[in-house]
Protein backbone atom coordinates (compact mmCIF):
# COMPACT_ATOMS: atom_id res chain seq x y z
CA UNK A 1 0.00 0.00 0.00
CA UNK A 2 2.00 2.93 -1.29
CA UNK A 3 -0.74 5.52 -0.87
CA UNK A 4 -0.77 7.49 2.34
CA UNK A 5 -4.26 7.99 3.61
CA UNK A 6 -3.33 10.66 6.13
CA UNK A 7 -3.33 13.04 3.17
CA UNK A 8 -7.12 12.62 3.29
CA UNK A 9 -7.41 13.61 6.92
CA UNK A 10 -8.67 16.99 5.80
CA UNK A 11 -11.49 15.63 3.64
CA UNK A 12 -12.57 13.54 6.62
CA UNK A 13 -12.79 16.63 8.77
CA UNK A 14 -14.66 18.42 6.00
CA UNK A 15 -17.14 15.57 5.73
CA UNK A 16 -17.80 15.60 9.46
CA UNK A 17 -18.48 19.36 9.42
CA UNK A 18 -20.64 19.03 6.29
CA UNK A 19 -22.80 16.29 7.82
CA UNK A 20 -23.41 18.45 10.89
CA UNK A 21 -24.45 21.47 8.80
CA UNK A 22 -26.44 19.54 6.18
CA UNK A 23 -29.82 19.09 7.97
CA UNK A 24 -29.93 22.78 8.94
CA UNK A 25 -29.10 24.02 5.47
CA UNK A 26 -31.61 21.69 3.86
CA UNK A 27 -34.33 22.63 6.34
CA UNK A 28 -33.65 26.32 5.76
CA UNK A 29 -33.80 25.81 1.98
CA UNK A 30 -37.25 24.16 2.18
CA UNK A 31 -38.62 26.74 4.62
CA UNK A 32 -37.32 29.71 2.63
CA UNK A 33 -38.53 28.26 -0.68
CA UNK A 34 -42.07 27.78 0.65
CA UNK A 35 -42.09 31.27 2.19
CA UNK A 36 -40.55 32.90 -0.87
CA UNK A 37 -42.95 31.22 -3.32
CA UNK A 38 -45.96 32.10 -1.19
CA UNK A 39 -44.89 35.73 -0.89
CA UNK A 40 -43.90 35.97 -4.54
CA UNK A 41 -47.08 34.44 -5.94
CA UNK A 42 -49.75 35.54 -3.46
CA UNK A 43 -48.57 38.49 -1.37
CA UNK A 44 -46.47 40.62 -3.73
CA UNK A 45 -48.53 43.06 -5.83
CA UNK A 46 -48.25 43.27 -9.60
CA UNK A 47 -45.89 45.88 -10.98
CA UNK A 48 -47.48 49.08 -12.32
CA UNK A 49 -45.52 48.79 -15.57
CA UNK A 50 -44.83 45.09 -15.97
CA UNK A 51 -48.05 43.70 -14.52
CA UNK A 52 -47.91 40.08 -13.42
CA UNK A 53 -44.72 39.33 -15.37
CA UNK A 54 -42.79 40.88 -12.49
CA UNK A 55 -43.32 37.53 -10.73
CA UNK A 56 -40.81 35.99 -13.13
CA UNK A 57 -38.22 38.11 -11.32
CA UNK A 58 -38.51 35.93 -8.21
CA UNK A 59 -37.10 32.93 -10.07
CA UNK A 60 -34.98 34.84 -12.60
CA UNK A 61 -32.87 37.19 -10.47
CA UNK A 62 -31.88 34.68 -7.72
CA UNK A 63 -30.85 32.18 -10.42
CA UNK A 64 -28.66 34.83 -12.06
CA UNK A 65 -27.14 35.83 -8.70
CA UNK A 66 -26.32 32.20 -7.96
CA UNK A 67 -24.91 31.59 -11.44
CA UNK A 68 -22.39 34.37 -10.84
CA UNK A 69 -21.71 33.68 -7.13
CA UNK A 70 -21.07 29.98 -7.70
CA UNK A 71 -18.60 30.80 -10.46
CA UNK A 72 -16.80 33.27 -8.19
CA UNK A 73 -16.62 30.63 -5.47
CA UNK A 74 -15.23 28.13 -7.98
CA UNK A 75 -12.57 30.63 -9.06
CA UNK A 76 -11.47 31.11 -5.44
CA UNK A 77 -11.43 27.32 -4.86
CA UNK A 78 -9.54 26.71 -8.08
CA UNK A 79 -6.91 29.31 -7.09
CA UNK A 80 -6.58 27.66 -3.68
CA UNK A 81 -6.24 24.30 -5.39
CA UNK A 82 -3.48 25.59 -7.67
CA UNK A 83 -1.55 27.42 -4.95
CA UNK A 84 -1.85 25.17 -1.88
CA UNK A 85 -2.75 21.89 -3.59
CA UNK A 86 -5.48 21.44 -1.05
CA UNK A 87 -7.35 18.27 -2.08
CA UNK A 88 -10.81 19.56 -1.12
CA UNK A 89 -10.38 22.84 -3.06
CA UNK A 90 -10.33 21.24 -6.53
CA UNK A 91 -13.08 18.81 -5.61
CA UNK A 92 -15.32 21.56 -4.28
CA UNK A 93 -14.94 23.57 -7.49
CA UNK A 94 -15.75 20.41 -9.45
CA UNK A 95 -18.78 19.72 -7.25
CA UNK A 96 -20.11 23.27 -7.59
CA UNK A 97 -19.91 23.46 -11.41
CA UNK A 98 -23.10 21.52 -12.33
CA UNK A 99 -25.08 23.51 -9.74
CA UNK A 100 -23.83 26.82 -11.13
CA UNK A 101 -24.57 25.63 -14.66
CA UNK A 102 -28.18 24.82 -13.70
CA UNK A 103 -28.69 28.24 -12.12
CA UNK A 104 -27.18 29.99 -15.16
CA UNK A 105 -29.37 27.98 -17.52
CA UNK A 106 -32.42 28.94 -15.45
CA UNK A 107 -31.45 32.62 -15.52
CA UNK A 108 -31.26 32.45 -19.32
CA UNK A 109 -34.51 30.54 -19.83
CA UNK A 110 -36.60 32.56 -17.36
CA UNK A 111 -35.02 35.73 -18.77
CA UNK A 112 -36.17 34.76 -22.26
CA UNK A 113 -39.68 34.10 -20.93
CA UNK A 114 -39.65 37.55 -19.36
CA UNK A 115 -38.10 39.22 -22.39
CA UNK A 116 -40.79 38.12 -24.83
CA UNK A 117 -43.74 39.90 -23.14
CA UNK A 118 -41.71 42.94 -21.98
CA UNK A 119 -39.20 43.56 -24.79
CA UNK A 120 -41.01 41.76 -27.58
CA UNK A 121 -38.21 39.24 -28.06
CA UNK A 122 -36.93 36.08 -26.38
CA UNK A 123 -33.34 36.84 -27.17
CA UNK A 124 -31.06 39.71 -28.21
CA UNK A 125 -27.32 39.56 -28.64
CA UNK A 126 -26.66 42.35 -26.20
CA UNK A 127 -23.94 42.58 -23.58
CA UNK A 128 -25.77 41.21 -20.53
CA UNK A 129 -27.43 38.29 -22.28
CA UNK A 130 -24.37 37.34 -24.29
CA UNK A 131 -22.01 37.47 -21.29
CA UNK A 132 -24.46 35.28 -19.37
CA UNK A 133 -24.47 32.77 -22.24
CA UNK A 134 -20.66 32.78 -22.15
CA UNK A 135 -20.89 31.98 -18.41
CA UNK A 136 -22.98 28.91 -19.23
CA UNK A 137 -20.40 27.81 -21.82
CA UNK A 138 -17.61 28.33 -19.27
CA UNK A 139 -19.42 26.01 -16.87
CA UNK A 140 -19.95 23.40 -19.59
CA UNK A 141 -16.34 23.71 -20.77
CA UNK A 142 -15.10 23.30 -17.22
CA UNK A 143 -17.15 20.14 -16.72
CA UNK A 144 -16.03 18.73 -20.07
CA UNK A 145 -12.39 19.43 -19.23
CA UNK A 146 -12.61 17.36 -16.02
CA UNK A 147 -13.94 14.48 -18.07
CA UNK A 148 -11.24 14.63 -20.73
CA UNK A 149 -8.20 13.74 -18.60
CA UNK A 150 -7.41 10.33 -17.10
CA UNK A 151 -4.94 11.86 -14.67
CA UNK A 152 -6.71 13.54 -11.75
CA UNK A 153 -4.12 16.21 -10.98
CA UNK A 154 -3.75 17.17 -14.65
CA UNK A 155 -7.51 17.54 -14.99
CA UNK A 156 -7.69 19.60 -11.79
CA UNK A 157 -4.94 21.89 -13.07
CA UNK A 158 -6.38 22.43 -16.54
CA UNK A 159 -9.88 23.00 -15.18
CA UNK A 160 -8.60 25.44 -12.56
CA UNK A 161 -6.80 27.48 -15.22
CA UNK A 162 -9.97 27.60 -17.34
CA UNK A 163 -12.04 28.86 -14.38
CA UNK A 164 -9.49 31.53 -13.54
CA UNK A 165 -9.21 32.80 -17.13
CA UNK A 166 -13.00 32.80 -17.42
CA UNK A 167 -13.36 34.77 -14.17
CA UNK A 168 -12.85 37.95 -16.21
CA UNK A 169 -16.39 37.36 -17.45
CA UNK A 170 -17.89 37.94 -13.97
CA UNK A 171 -17.22 41.73 -13.74
CA UNK A 172 -18.18 41.94 -17.42
CA UNK A 173 -21.61 40.47 -16.60
CA UNK A 174 -22.01 42.68 -13.55
CA UNK A 175 -21.14 45.95 -15.29
CA UNK A 176 -22.37 45.07 -18.79
CA UNK A 177 -25.58 47.01 -18.13
CA UNK A 178 -23.55 50.15 -17.35
CA UNK A 179 -20.83 49.83 -20.00
CA UNK A 180 -22.98 49.10 -23.03
CA UNK A 181 -26.40 50.01 -24.29
CA UNK A 182 -28.57 47.07 -23.51
CA UNK A 183 -32.21 46.11 -23.28
CA UNK A 184 -31.55 44.65 -19.87
CA UNK A 185 -32.35 46.96 -16.99
CA UNK A 186 -29.46 48.21 -14.81
CA UNK A 187 -28.81 46.96 -11.28
CA UNK A 188 -31.73 47.72 -9.00
CA UNK A 189 -30.94 45.82 -5.79
CA UNK A 190 -27.17 46.03 -5.23
CA UNK A 191 -26.67 49.74 -5.93
CA UNK A 192 -24.70 52.33 -3.99
CA UNK A 193 -27.92 54.19 -3.11
CA UNK A 194 -29.56 51.03 -1.83
CA UNK A 195 -32.30 48.98 -3.49
CA UNK A 196 -34.59 50.80 -5.89
CA UNK A 197 -37.39 48.27 -5.57
CA UNK A 198 -40.39 48.67 -3.28
CA UNK A 199 -40.32 46.50 -0.16
CA UNK A 200 -43.42 44.53 -1.15
CA UNK A 201 -41.50 43.12 -4.12
CA UNK A 202 -37.98 43.33 -2.68
CA UNK A 203 -38.76 41.12 0.35
CA UNK A 204 -39.95 38.06 -1.63
CA UNK A 205 -36.98 38.55 -3.97
CA UNK A 206 -34.50 38.48 -1.07
CA UNK A 207 -36.25 35.48 0.50
CA UNK A 208 -36.00 33.60 -2.81
CA UNK A 209 -32.35 34.66 -3.06
CA UNK A 210 -31.67 33.20 0.40
CA UNK A 211 -33.64 30.06 -0.52
CA UNK A 212 -31.51 29.51 -3.65
CA UNK A 213 -28.35 30.09 -1.59
CA UNK A 214 -29.41 27.43 0.95
CA UNK A 215 -30.44 25.08 -1.84
CA UNK A 216 -27.01 25.54 -3.37
CA UNK A 217 -25.29 24.73 -0.05
CA UNK A 218 -27.43 21.64 0.44
CA UNK A 219 -26.76 20.21 -3.04
CA UNK A 220 -23.13 21.34 -2.78
CA UNK A 221 -22.59 19.27 0.39
CA UNK A 222 -24.10 16.22 -1.33
CA UNK A 223 -21.89 16.70 -4.38
CA UNK A 224 -18.63 17.40 -2.50
CA UNK A 225 -19.25 14.29 -0.42
CA UNK A 226 -19.73 12.31 -3.64
CA UNK A 227 -16.53 13.77 -5.13
CA UNK A 228 -14.45 12.96 -2.03
CA UNK A 229 -15.76 9.40 -1.90
CA UNK A 230 -15.29 8.94 -5.64
CA UNK A 231 -11.67 10.06 -5.29
CA UNK A 232 -11.20 7.59 -2.43
CA UNK A 233 -12.76 4.86 -4.56
CA UNK A 234 -10.44 5.56 -7.51
CA UNK A 235 -7.39 5.49 -5.23
CA UNK A 236 -8.48 2.20 -3.67
CA UNK A 237 -9.05 0.65 -7.09
CA UNK A 238 -5.53 1.65 -8.15
CA UNK A 239 -3.94 0.36 -4.95
CA UNK A 240 -5.79 -2.94 -5.37
CA UNK A 241 -4.32 -3.31 -8.86
CA UNK A 242 -0.83 -2.69 -7.50
CA UNK A 243 -1.08 -5.41 -4.86
Amino acid at each position, binding site marked *: MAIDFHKYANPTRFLRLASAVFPWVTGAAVLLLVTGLYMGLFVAPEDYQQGE*TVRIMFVHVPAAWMGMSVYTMMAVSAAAGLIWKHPVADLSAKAAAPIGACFTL*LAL*VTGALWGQPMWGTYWVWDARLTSMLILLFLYLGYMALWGSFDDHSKAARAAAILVLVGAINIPVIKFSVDWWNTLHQPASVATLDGPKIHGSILTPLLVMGAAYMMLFLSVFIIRVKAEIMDRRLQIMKISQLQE
Partner: protein
Amino acid sequence: MAEFNEFLEMGGYAAFVWPSYLVSAVVLTLLVVFSVRRLRRIERDLKPFEERRQARRNRTRSSRTEPLNDT
Protein backbone atom coordinates in the same frame (compact mmCIF):
# COMPACT_ATOMS: atom_id res chain seq x y z
CA MET B 1 -63.22 29.68 -8.18
CA ALA B 2 -63.31 32.83 -10.29
CA GLU B 3 -60.60 34.23 -8.10
CA PHE B 4 -58.49 31.13 -8.63
CA ASN B 5 -58.95 31.31 -12.40
CA GLU B 6 -57.88 34.93 -12.30
CA PHE B 7 -54.78 33.89 -10.36
CA LEU B 8 -53.97 31.24 -12.96
CA GLU B 9 -54.39 33.73 -15.78
CA MET B 10 -51.63 35.96 -14.34
CA GLY B 11 -53.09 39.08 -15.95
CA GLY B 12 -52.85 37.50 -19.41
CA TYR B 13 -49.19 36.53 -18.92
CA ALA B 14 -49.84 32.92 -17.82
CA ALA B 15 -47.89 31.60 -20.84
CA PHE B 16 -44.74 33.31 -19.54
CA VAL B 17 -45.08 33.28 -15.76
CA TRP B 18 -45.98 29.60 -15.25
CA PRO B 19 -43.38 28.13 -17.61
CA SER B 20 -40.64 30.09 -15.79
CA TYR B 21 -41.72 28.62 -12.45
CA LEU B 22 -42.16 25.17 -13.97
CA VAL B 23 -38.76 25.07 -15.67
CA SER B 24 -37.11 26.27 -12.44
CA ALA B 25 -38.84 23.53 -10.43
CA VAL B 26 -37.97 20.82 -12.96
CA VAL B 27 -34.31 21.77 -13.38
CA LEU B 28 -33.67 22.15 -9.65
CA THR B 29 -35.51 18.92 -8.79
CA LEU B 30 -33.49 17.00 -11.38
CA LEU B 31 -30.30 18.53 -9.98
CA VAL B 32 -31.16 17.29 -6.47
CA VAL B 33 -32.25 13.83 -7.69
CA PHE B 34 -29.14 13.25 -9.83
CA SER B 35 -26.81 14.54 -7.09
CA VAL B 36 -28.31 12.22 -4.44
CA ARG B 37 -28.30 9.25 -6.84
CA ARG B 38 -24.64 9.77 -7.71
CA LEU B 39 -23.68 9.93 -4.03
CA ARG B 40 -25.61 6.73 -3.27
CA ARG B 41 -23.98 4.90 -6.18
CA ILE B 42 -20.48 5.93 -5.13
CA GLU B 43 -21.15 4.98 -1.49
CA ARG B 44 -22.36 1.55 -2.64
CA ASP B 45 -19.28 1.01 -4.83
CA LEU B 46 -16.94 2.13 -2.08
CA LYS B 47 -18.39 -0.14 0.61
CA PRO B 48 -16.63 -3.42 -0.30
CA PHE B 49 -13.26 -1.61 -0.50
CA GLU B 50 -13.74 0.00 2.91
CA GLU B 51 -14.80 -3.32 4.45
CA ARG B 52 -11.79 -5.13 3.02
CA ARG B 53 -9.48 -2.42 4.33
CA GLN B 54 -11.08 -2.57 7.76
CA ALA B 55 -10.74 -6.36 7.84
CA ARG B 56 -7.07 -6.15 6.89
CA ARG B 57 -6.46 -3.53 9.54
CA ASN B 58 -8.11 -5.68 12.19
CA ARG B 59 -5.97 -8.64 11.14
CA THR B 60 -2.68 -6.74 11.41
CA ARG B 61 -3.77 -5.27 14.74
CA SER B 62 -4.64 -8.66 16.23
CA SER B 63 -1.39 -10.25 14.98
CA ARG B 64 0.50 -7.40 16.60
CA THR B 65 -1.26 -7.76 19.94
CA GLU B 66 -1.05 -11.55 20.13
CA PRO B 67 2.53 -11.73 21.45
CA LEU B 68 1.59 -9.22 24.12
CA ASN B 69 -1.29 -11.40 25.22
CA ASP B 70 1.08 -14.36 25.58
CA THR B 71 3.23 -12.64 28.15
